[in-house]
Each structure stands twice: as C-alpha cells, then as structure tokens.
C-alpha cells in the first residue's frame, strides 16, 4: 500500500495530465455524440421509416468490440492518435443518446402534442417549447450512460497512442506492475463516478418539481445542478490547460525531431527507451516517444505513414505477420529476406539486429531438467506422455507453434491446458504444469529458475530484434545507423532476460534501467 502511495506521489503530475487527457477524450466525444445524437433522435422520431434503420445502425456500432473498432478506424483513417479514438468513442456514445431521445419524445402523451398543435404551435415551437423540455430528463439519462461508457472505453484508446489513463493501465499490464494499473484504473473509476453523479443531478434538476418551503434550497439550486455537467466540462478543460497535455499526444513533429515507437510489452518498452536515449545522447535531435502502441500492425502502419520514424521489430514477426510469408528457419536468410522486402515494398530499412533471439522456447523447471537430464526438446520425447503442458492459445494454433512442433519432434504431451501468457511462467514455477512455451528473453525465466530447452531440430523460426527505420529519416540523419549499432552484440538472450526482469519483477523504472545499461561496461 505504501508502495502504491509512493508511486502516486512520484507520478502525480503525470496522473493529472493523463486524467485531463482522459477527460478531454470522454468529454469531447460525449459532446459531439450529443450534438449529433439529439438531432438524429428527433429525425428518427419524426420519420417512422427512418427510425428502424437509424436504430439498427447505431446498434450495430455498439456490437463491435471496442478494440476491434479502434483497429478498424486505424485502418480506415490511417492514423494513430486522438482522431480514431474520438470517432470510436462518438460511435459508442451515439446509441444511448439517440435511443433515449426517441424514447423521451415517444413517451409524451398524445394529448399534450395535440394541445400544443391545437393552440397554434408550429412543429418547431412544439418541439422546442414542449417536446424537448419534456424529453430532457430521459435524454440526459442517455447522455449519462454515454459518458460513463466513454470513460471506460477511453482507457483502450491508449493502445493507439491517444493518451489518457489507459496509458498507465497498458504499461502496468505490459510490465506486470499492479501499482501502475491501479494508477490508471482508480482515477478512471473516480472520473466515471463524478461524471455519473453530475449528470444524475442534472437529470433530476430538469425534471419539473413543485416548489415547497421544505425543499426551498434544493429548488433554488436547480438551475445550478442543471448546468453542473457544463461546469465539469469547463473545469476539466482548465485542468488540462494547467497540467499541460502530454507531449506524446501531440502529433506535430518538427524537422529536428525523431519519433520512436514501440509495442505494448516490457521488452519493446525497454528497446524503445534504449533507442530513444541513444539518439538523445549522441545527436542534437530531440526525441518524441510514442510508446505502447497496441500491436504489430499498429506500429507497422504508423511507421509506413511516417507517424513514427523507428521502432524495433522481430524477423520472424515481420515475415509472418507483415509480409505474410512462411517462416524461415535460418536466421540470416530470414533477416536478409525481411530487409530486402521491407526496402522494396515500404522504403523501410532494417538496421543490424541487436543480438538476442526472442523466439518461442520449450521451457521446463531447472530441477526437473537436472533430474531427468533434459537439455534439448528431443530429450523430452520419452517422458512426454507423463507431462502436463501449458501453452498460450496462440501457440496452440500457430503453424510455427504446437501444430508443427508435434510433427517435427513427434511429441505428444499427456495433457495440455490453454494458459494466458502472463500466468504461464508462474504456473510452471508452482508445478501446476511441467512444460510451457516461454519466450526466450522473458525475465521470469531466470527469476523462477526455469530452463529453455535447446531447439535441436531448429524448428522455431528466429525472432531476432532489429530497429526498422524509415529510409527518408536515415538519409537525412545517416548517423542514426551507427548510433543504434552501439549496443549491437551487447544484448544477448540472457542480458535481455535480465533487463526484462528488472522491469517486470524488480518494478524498476524503464528509463533508469535503460540508462544504467547504456552506462555499463562495453
């Protein structure tokens, strides 16, 4: 607990900034959805035929999983950052607002509508003076639902570099740091409660209530409650202005700036930070960090479009996920292939690999290995029927995973369970399973006294990590190549394991881990 308090104190300015960003994302998207949703609801209410169509469309948006929605928008817009996040949030927020506008208007009794018309109101006057005021509490209830949904979904927008509290959550999840997750989740939950509370008060304030002496104060305060959400929005904006929006949100990149990206797991964060510090130390260039991007495709597309200038990719991933080719087992052949194809297809340059190979490894407990004298995967074959394996679902399905492994080694484990990647290592350490599909550089391998077995039939394709740079950038700043090469050869599997361990298990700050490594002996 005190550890968490320290994190809060240490990171407080950033918490303010991220909360502000989160607020802007939520507030703006709710505002836009309101400005769009109420007219759409009115339109649907007035034209019966349109109603079903409109409701079906906004319903459809709601059924798309949030991450998938972000991914789709990313492809459509070809942009990381705030724009796709805002659009996604607006689409989610539309349904409750449109639906409640229609409901609110529908609930008005025919007598009242007829009375309005009968005393000589035009359709517009009827709408503004009677229908909208009467539907307002229901409409505000819709806005309330929308805003709370937005606060939740906005945590996902950190995956595409839109900032917000999700950034803490992502980093926390990526580095197994519960305190960081809480640092994002607690303010997000509080924000949701505040937004919900304000809108709930506003909702009640616009209900017509009789004036009574007993509730005199409450009656007098009604107008204030009604504009509470507006006050909240404005004060949130001020918070952002005071806190200053984090620089990794702004997409402007000056000429003298290099944008370094990375995916959303520990090793990538370390590699991104290493590259960023190398460039900062050895050039005059300033570095913008756009870290924690939610996946290979997001990084790759951002690089192709010049939204980031460099990030670190793995040869095996580039071959199978980006180039859609089958894996190549020879490390050099694989590297040459991706380097050639990237230059040809995307004008992207693969620099020298750092040295480690973060491939799948069949991993066991060191004690078991000693006892049974296991050194290679082939050594497992006689005992396999007695062993319980824990593999990720991805590994189970991949051609270069269990399907291929089974054939090449004629391996058949007694029992196999699907496990989440982050739980796998602990499950092995606690003897709940006997074999897992670890990643060669995971910090938990040394931490839990585990042993990756040698792939004696060279089945797993190589996953050597190397910086991928935009050709244009390399032409402008050719020195980058040699600067990034300074750590080539210093990062083998074991060193990378140690760095990952320091962040994952030691909960050390990534910046200082990277700094210490760069200062260390050549």
């Amino acid at each position, binding site marked *: 607990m005190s550890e968490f308090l320290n994190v809060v104190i240490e990171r407080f300015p950033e918490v303010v900034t991220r909360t502000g960003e989160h607020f802007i994302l939520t507030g703006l998207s709710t505002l836009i959805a309101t400005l769009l949703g109420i007219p759409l609801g009115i339109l649907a209410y007035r034209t019966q035929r349109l109603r079903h169509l409109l409701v079906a469309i906004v319903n459809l948006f709601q059924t798309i999983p949030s991450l998938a929605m972000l991914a789709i928008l990313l492809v459509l817009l070809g942009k990381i950052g705030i724009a796709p996040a805002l659009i996604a949030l607006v689409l989610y927020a539309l349904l409750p607002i449109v639906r409640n506008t229609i409901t609110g208007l529908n609930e008005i*009794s*025919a*007598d*009242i509508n*007829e*009375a*309005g*018309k*009968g*005393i*000589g*109101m*035009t359709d517009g*006057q009827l709408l503004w*003076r*009677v229908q909208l*005021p*009467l539907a307002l509490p229901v409409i505000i209830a819709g806005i309330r639902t929308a805003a709370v949904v937005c606060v939740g979904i906005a945590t996902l927008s950190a995956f595409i570099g839109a900032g917000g509290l999700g950034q803490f959550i992502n980093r926390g999840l990526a580095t197994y740091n519960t305190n960081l997750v809480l640092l994002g989740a607690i303010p997000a939950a509080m924000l949701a409660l505040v937004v919900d509370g304000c809108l709930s008060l506003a909702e009640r304030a616009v209900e*017509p*209530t*009789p*004036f009574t002496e007993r509730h005199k104060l409450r009656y007098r305060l009604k107008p204030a409650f009604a504009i509470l959400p507006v006050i909240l929005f404005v004060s949130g904006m001020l918070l952002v202005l005071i806190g200053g929006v984090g620089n990794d949100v702004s997409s402007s990149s000056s000429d003298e700036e290099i944008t370094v990206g990375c995916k959303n797991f520990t090793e990538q964060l370390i590699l991104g930070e290493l590259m960023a510090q190398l460039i900062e130390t050895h050039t005059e260039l300033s570095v913008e960090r756009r870290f924690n991007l939610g996946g290979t495709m997001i990084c790759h597309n951002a690089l192709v479009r010049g939204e980031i200038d460099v990030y670190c990719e793995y040869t095996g991933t580039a071959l199978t996920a980006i180039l859609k080719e089958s894996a190549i087992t020879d490390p050099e052949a694989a590297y040459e292939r991706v380097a050639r194809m990237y230059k040809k297809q995307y004008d992207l340059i693969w620099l020298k690999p750092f040295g480690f190979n973060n491939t799948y490894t069949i991993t066991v407990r060191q004690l078991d290995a000693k006892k049974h004298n296991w050194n290679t995967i082939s050594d497992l074959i006689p005992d396999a029927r007695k062993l319980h394996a824990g593999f990720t679902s991805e590994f189970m399905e991949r051609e270069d995973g269990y399907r291929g492994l089974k054939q090449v080694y004629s391996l058949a484990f007694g029992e196999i369970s699907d496990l989440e990647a982050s739980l796998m290592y602990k499950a092995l350490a606690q003897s709940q399973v006997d074999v897992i599909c670890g990643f060669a550089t995971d910090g938990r391998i040394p931490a839990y006294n585990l042993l990756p077995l040698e792939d004696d039939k060279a089945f797993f394709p190589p996953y050597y990590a190397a910086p991928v740079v935009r050709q244009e950038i390399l032409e402008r700043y050719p020195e980058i190549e040699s600067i990034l090469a300074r750590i080539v050869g210093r990062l083998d599997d074991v060193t990378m394991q140690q760095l990952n361990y320091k962040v994952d298990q030691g909960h050390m700050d990534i910046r200082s881990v990277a700094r210490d490594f760069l200062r260390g002996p050549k």
Partner: protein
Amino acid sequence: MMVKLEHVYKSFDQGKSFAVQDISLEVREGETVVLLGKSGCGKTTTLKMINRLIEPTKGLIEVDGRDVRTRNPVMLRRSIGYVFQGIGLFPHLTVEKNIRTSLSLLGWSKSRQKQRVQQLLDLVELAPDEYADRLPRELSGGQQQRVGVARALAGSPKYLLMDEPFGALDAITRDVLQQQLLKIQKKLGVTVVFVTHDIFEALNVASYIAVLNEGRIEQIGTKEEIVSEPKTDFVREIFAKPTGQLRRYKSLL
C-alpha cells in the same frame, strides 16, 4: 360572423367509408352549439375540421365568412380557443406559464401577458396568488380544466371549440364547471362549439343541439325542439333512456 359547415365529408380510408357525412351546420355569434352523440359518431372529427387539425375530404367550412382552407392553419388555430378532452396542460410549465404560452404565440409583450393571466385566473375563479406558480400535477382535475379554459380564452378569441372538456371529471365538478362556462360565455359573448356524449350536459349548456349518428346529423334544433319533437327513432331513443332513469330515480324519492 359565424362558423359555417356546408356538406362536409370526411373519410379516413380514401372514400371506402365516411366518419363524417354531409354535415351542414351554422353557429351564430354568441351561441353554443352542442354536437351530441355516442363515441365514434364523428362529433370530434367535425370539431377538429373547424380549426384544421383534420382536413375535410369534401365540403366547405367557413369561419368569419372565410373558407378555412385559405387560412394558414397555425394562425387559424391561434385565433380560435380550444379546450381538450385530455386537458393537455404542459406538465413542465406552471399554471401561469401554461396560459402565457398561448399569449406568447400571439406575440403579446411580457407585461401584458402577466396582467392577462391575473384576469383569466380571476375569471375561472382560481386565486392567482395561490395557483399561478403551481404545476398542473398539483391541481385537481377540475382545477386543471379551469386552467385549460383560461388558456383557451387567453387571447380573447371569438370562437371556442370544446372537445368533451368535462368528460373526465366527476359529476359535481362537471356541473360546477358547466355553470361557470355559462357565466363566462354570458360575460364575454364568445361563440362555442361543444362536443359531448352527455345528454344532461348538452341540455345544460346548449343554445342548439345537433344530434349525430354514424357521421350524419339526425336532427338539429333548440333543446326544446329536440326533446319535445324528436324527428327520428334514434333521437327519441337517446332521450328516452335518461327519461327512464329519471323516472326510476324520482320513484325512490
């Protein structure tokens, strides 16, 4: 100066059947004409055609000697008071604001509106100090419809359309409001078209009664004519029933 209907027809199904058939009617200044009939006889449809809430299929309707089809329907409705069966007060507005809504549609200034609201509440015998700032739901049904009448009379219209205005009220309140209506009408000289299914109400408020059945006028005349010389079996029967009821009631006294 009057309301006139000439051979008016209304069909809601492209001429397959008629809700209103060949209705001709004249309402002279200061008179109250009651459209009397059972539900579905076309009396409300007839009423709503006068201020163009419903458009006739055939026939001519004149208000003040002008064909209503030549008038802007919104302006026409503003010039004619309307009291609704469902009362139709705006639930989010106070009594005062409900009445002022009609006045603001007519473009009255704020200070004149305020003054007028006082007069109107006095007219329908609701103390302004006590009731002006109340919401409709704080009022009884009878009080609500008094506000409804005040709203309809706000702009001093020459014509008042009343669609079963007291139908939802209890018998005693209904009687009080009927008497009040007669008083107001005498005072203001307003011309009224009044729809009801209640024979006693019709006898109470009418100068003339038009008995409607299946979209047609069975008979039109003064109360005395209708009661003493019913022209059709239908008219005779609808008056026979309450006469029977009355006889049974008297025998108990």
